[in-house]
């Protein structure tokens, strides 16, 4: 199938819409606009490596990583169970999974406020049973909850679609050869589902790191994340140079991480590169 030409319209489009804007980003992050002079400079990057900003970066990556792992732990079993259910309900279930995402992001996050508040719905239920009120809001718990809530369908969908087509006979063969379900999973199912898992991780971790609404509303503005910082630079402060520099650092970090994961995938599946 020598069909590489199929990718050409796409590559052209991307060149225009992605590469050029990236070029702008790189241009902004390396220059300063003092009056009419645009000088090449490292100052924005130097500024970013001050402890206060690094603290924000570390916090963002940690929270995003925790959320991604939780999404994976909850999402993988869900994808497996959905995969095993009877045929006629499968597509409905998948659509039902995605349906909440069609309600506006801001609205859903506001609704979580009503659920998690001190006098909110969850706490009212707890009090009714006779338990103590919990501090569910304006802390890292709430932010992680928000992230998991918003991104879990992005984890479940790719894993589900890959699991769907795993050859049954491979699983049966493993069972015939005496493997119990756990070993079958570790040695056969999971490795085969890896492309889906990696897609899922990509689609969850990236937006989780750069999100800003969730930390603002559910974190009560107490927890500043990289996304807040970038948004502030571009919109409030008008310092596009610093904002671009931060974005560039983010992208480089993530690309390096992706490089490691794709290497891992290569080793697992052998043959076929990314």
């Amino acid at each position, binding site marked *: 199938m020598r069909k590489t030409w199929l990718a050409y319209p796409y590559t052209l489009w991307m060149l225009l819409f992605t590469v050029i804007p990236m070029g702008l980003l790189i241009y902004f992050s390396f220059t300063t606009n003092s009056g009419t002079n645009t000088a090449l400079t490292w100052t924005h990057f130097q500024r970013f490596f001050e402890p206060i900003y690094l603290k924000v970066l570390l916090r963002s990556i940690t929270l995003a990583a925790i959320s991604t792992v939780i999404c994976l732990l909850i999402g993988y079993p869900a994808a497996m169970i959905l995969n095993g259910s009877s045929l006629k309900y499968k597509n409905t279930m998948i659509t039902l999974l995605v349906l909440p995402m069609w309600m506006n992001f801001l609205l859903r996050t506001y609704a979580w406020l009503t659920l998690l508040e001190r006098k909110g719905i969850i706490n009212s239920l707890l009090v009714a049973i006779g338990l103590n009120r919990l501090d569910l809001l304006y802390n890292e718990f709430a932010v992680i909850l928000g992230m998991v809530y918003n991104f879990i369908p992005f984890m479940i969908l790719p894993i589900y679609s890959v699991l769907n087509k795993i050859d049954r006979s491979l699983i049966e063969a493993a069972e015939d050869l005496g493997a119990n379900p756990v070993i079958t999973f570790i040695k056969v199912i999971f490795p085969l589902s890896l492309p889906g898992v990696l897609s899922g991780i990509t689609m969850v971790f990236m937006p989780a790191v750069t999100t800003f609404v969730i930390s603002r509303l559910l974190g009560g503005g*107490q927890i500043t994340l990289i996304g807040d910082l970038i948004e502030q630079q571009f919109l409030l*402060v*008008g310092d596009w140079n610093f904002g671009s520099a931060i974005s560039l650092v983010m992208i480089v970090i993530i690309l390096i991480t992706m490089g490691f994961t794709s290497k891992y995938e290569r080793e697992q599946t052998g043959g076929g590169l990314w």
Partner: protein
Amino acid sequence: MKRLLAIVLVLVTILIGCSPKNQTVLNVYNWGDYIDEKVISDFEKKYNIKVNYETFTTNEDMYIKLKAGGSHYDVIIPSDYMIKRMIDEDLLAKLDFENIPNYKYIADQFKNLDFDPDNEYSVPYMWGTVGILYNTKMIQEKIDSWTALWDQKYSKQILMLDSQRDSIGITLKMLGYSLNSKDTNELEQAKKALIEQKPLVLAYVVDEGKDKMIAGEAALAVVWSGDAINCIRENPDLTYVIPKEGSNLWFDSMVIPKNARNKKEAELFINFMCETDIAYRNADYIGYASPHTEAVKKLPKEIANDHRAYPPMEELTNCEVFVDLGSVIKEFDRIWTEIKAQ
């Protein structure tokens, strides 16, 4: 599958192509939910002009779009400090007040404001103050100072605004300085005060603070006067006060950008918004304070005489309007990030 695709493509092409091109089109850019809907259709019917109504989230978002120049807006309704910046950067057109006779209804105290001293570029739309909204059932004493927000006994009962200028501004006021201060020393003091306060703050909120106060989730909050009035309406235990150190006086005014394509129609629109009945309907729907003298007369007595919504000038002596900070905004941002990242 192929057929469906074809139908969709045809529909889309038709829809994109279809647009009646004989009417004048006026592009209005305003805050969300900041006008009585029917006012727009009334304007369209009266003058046979189509209105493209778009909304923006913050002054800064609007500024970026305007500056970038991709869209041409005819009427914009930004806030005070942003108007000053736009005037300084020569982004606004001077208004021809011959076309806006209804301007006479705007109260004199709202003409020639700090950000537009010769009143050449703007016509006020809504105004208000910033103050403390507090729950009288949860707080036994009378609150009259910003220092209440730093009081240990209200720990985790305080809601601050998640806005650099507002929060740093009121801190500066509390310390006795101007909320437009560019003095590094004063800003450092403000920063220290806010970092001290952080453990006492329940959350830094935007608009969700209102619902929280109504629900009794917190005892004190920094809010805008218009929102305060709406909250009090929902929960009579609440009351609003402008602290004695002074506060922020804010205005949202109507302006016309320089690159507007339909200046005459834009002035027509501004004039229409200043008609007594229209201004009244807007004030009634939005619930904020209107600068239109006749419109205020039409409002129910409890609102027009409520000094929390319509404070008399004596209460406003210590209040300042925000000015554009220029490059000092970067200092504000650095301070704010330090505070938030604790």
